[in-house]
């Protein structure tokens, strides 16, 4: 699993600043300061962003230029020693975490991404360009940018089953992992608070696009792994979260639902009558009382719909693993239940855990104290500044510092994840190679590391097609032992 987050950019005092240039400044500043030797290129060979999970390719001629993400545009694009990718996507700096296997590790490297972006922005300022970064998803003027999740799934799972069982889950999961927003409608013209940053930007149920006509279920089929065995489910509907519990439950519960879909465990039809409309209606009612009309005629709140999935997940884990279930899976189930129970009673009971509730609580305190209406610029500023990455300015950061929001991680473990890769995926091999043999790595991607060795005419491409190989267990000793890339490649080819 992993996340990819596009950050909002702002150049104070210069409204006309080119966002692509500003984003490149940010990424390049970090690359210059942190990379020891030559900068490895991103290797696009295995990328196929127009491959559709429904079984056909989109013609490049009809694709919007924003969909051609495999064309090397010369924009800043680097691979880090923690196995992550830092680059400019469209007009935003983006951090893609290395591949990890647990929800808590997603939180850890997603949070490490915030620290990388903060450092990049500080370095950029030192070189004379101030660029502020925001971990949010809209400017409230019609533009939205993404926070995507990726999950490796078995190829044998019928895509129609994924669409069928995942759509109602995505319509409702925002009650747990929404980031909260002041403004309703894509351009925020209606003055009110809503649960999700992204809900108003989704217009269809299923599709390949990510930048226009955004679909609840994205069909991009680009596994970055053996396509016979795996697909990568590319989830584009989530909000960028700062609260660690929000991120943890977002990916932990989604992973559980996907596991149930793979195993054919979900029998009841939880289909929603009009998913796109209901997605917005759930978001537009922060009291969480809105009733979603199900295809079978029932009417459930978003929380109740989530509870249906929770009950299934409990039975699934009990049925498949019983007392042998790993502790993090058990923890996800417990927290999910706890949060849903309290959201149903009074959402404000989750103000120390969930982004949208923490934000709404703060906004309500301001409204009470200063008598502000939802059109007040100060409330919009609080929404925006909640996502400011600077510890002294970001309101999420201030709430954490004041003990108003709980964390799941020690900062020292986040610091380590800024530099170190996870030990249990191929990101370990990628990250260690970048750290130890930087001058010999000419390019890398999710599924390869390419070496340029002195004295050899051709480049040496080491494929990393299996996400669960190249781990510390597989190659840790080998990399420790090999002082040079030549030694490593000799050992690998033996």
């Amino acid at each position, binding site marked *: 699993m992993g996340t990819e987050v596009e950050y909002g950019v702002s150049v104070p005092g210069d409204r006309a600043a080119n966002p692509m240039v500003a984003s490149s400044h940010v990424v390049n500043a970090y690359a210059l300061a942190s990379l020891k030797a030559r900068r490895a290129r991103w290797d696009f060979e295995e990328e196929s962003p127009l491959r559709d999970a429904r079984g056909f390719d989109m013609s490049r001629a009809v694709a919007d230029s924003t969909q051609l993400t495999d064309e090397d545009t010369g924009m800043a694009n680097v691979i880090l020693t923690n196995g992550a990718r830092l680059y400019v996507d469209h007009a935003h700096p983006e951090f893609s975490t290395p591949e990890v296997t647990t929800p808590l590790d997603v939180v850890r490297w997603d949070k490490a991404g915030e620290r990388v972006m903060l450092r990049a922005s500080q370095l950029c300022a030192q070189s004379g360009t101030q660029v502020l970064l925001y971990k949010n998803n809209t400017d409230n003027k019609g*533009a939205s940018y*993404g926070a995507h999740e990726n999950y490796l799934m078995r190829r044998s799972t019928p895509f129609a089953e994924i669409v069928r069982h995942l759509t109602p889950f995505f319509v409702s999961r925002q009650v747990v992992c929404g980031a909260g927003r002041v403004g309703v409608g894509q351009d925020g013209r209606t003055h009110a608070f809503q649960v999700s940053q992204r809900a108003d930007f989704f217009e269809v149920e299923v599709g390949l696009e990510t930048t226009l006509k955004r679909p609840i279920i994205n069909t991009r089929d680009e596994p970055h792994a053996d396509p016979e065995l795996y697909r990568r489910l590319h989830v584009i509907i989530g909000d960028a979260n700062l609260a660690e519990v929000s991120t943890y439950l977002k990916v932990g519960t989604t992973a559980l639902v996907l596991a149930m879909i793979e195993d054919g465990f979900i029998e009841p039809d939880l289909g929603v009558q009009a998913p796109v409309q209901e997605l917005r209606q759930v978001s537009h009612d922060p009291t969480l009382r809105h009733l979603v009309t199900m295809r079978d005629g029932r009417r459930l709140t978003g929380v109740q719909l989530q509870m249906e999935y929770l009950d299934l997940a409990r039975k699934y884990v009990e049925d498949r693993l019983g007392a*042998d279930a790993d502790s*993090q899976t058990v923890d996800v189930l417990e927290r999910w239940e706890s949060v849903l129970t309290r959201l149903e009673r009074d959402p404000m009971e989750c103000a120390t855990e969930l982004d949208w509730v923490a934000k709404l609580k703060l906004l309500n305190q301001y409204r009470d*104290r200063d008598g502000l209406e939802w059109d007040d*610029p100060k409330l919009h500023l609080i929404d925006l500044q909640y996502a400011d990455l600077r510890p002294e300015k970001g309101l999420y950061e201030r709430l954490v510092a*004041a003990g*108003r929001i*709980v964390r799941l991680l020690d900062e020292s473990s986040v610091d380590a994840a800024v530099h170190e890769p996870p030990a249990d995926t191929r990101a370990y091999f990628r990250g260690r190679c970048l750290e130890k043999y930087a001058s010999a790595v000419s390019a890398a991607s999710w599924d390869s590391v390419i070496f340029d060795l002195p004295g050899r005419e051709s480049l040496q491409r080491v494929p990393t097609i299996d996400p669960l190989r190249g781990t510390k267990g597989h190659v840790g000793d080998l990399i420790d032992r090999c002082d040079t890339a030549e030694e490593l490649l000799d050992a690998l080819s033996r």
Partner: protein
Amino acid sequence: MAQEQKQPRKSTGAEETPEEVAETDVAERKEVLDDDVDAILDEIDDVLETNAEDFVRSFIQKGGQ
């Protein structure tokens, strides 16, 4: 075959479970602080950007994914 990464796994006895950092402290402090909402608002007043209207208006993004 290796288990896929998002599957719930059998316990190996060595997994990590998140522990909220100083959660009880937070709960205790929360009660005290709730009596004094103004304390946190005063702190946030101090860090809010000046001229909210201008600042919010100038935050303009190009679309992304």
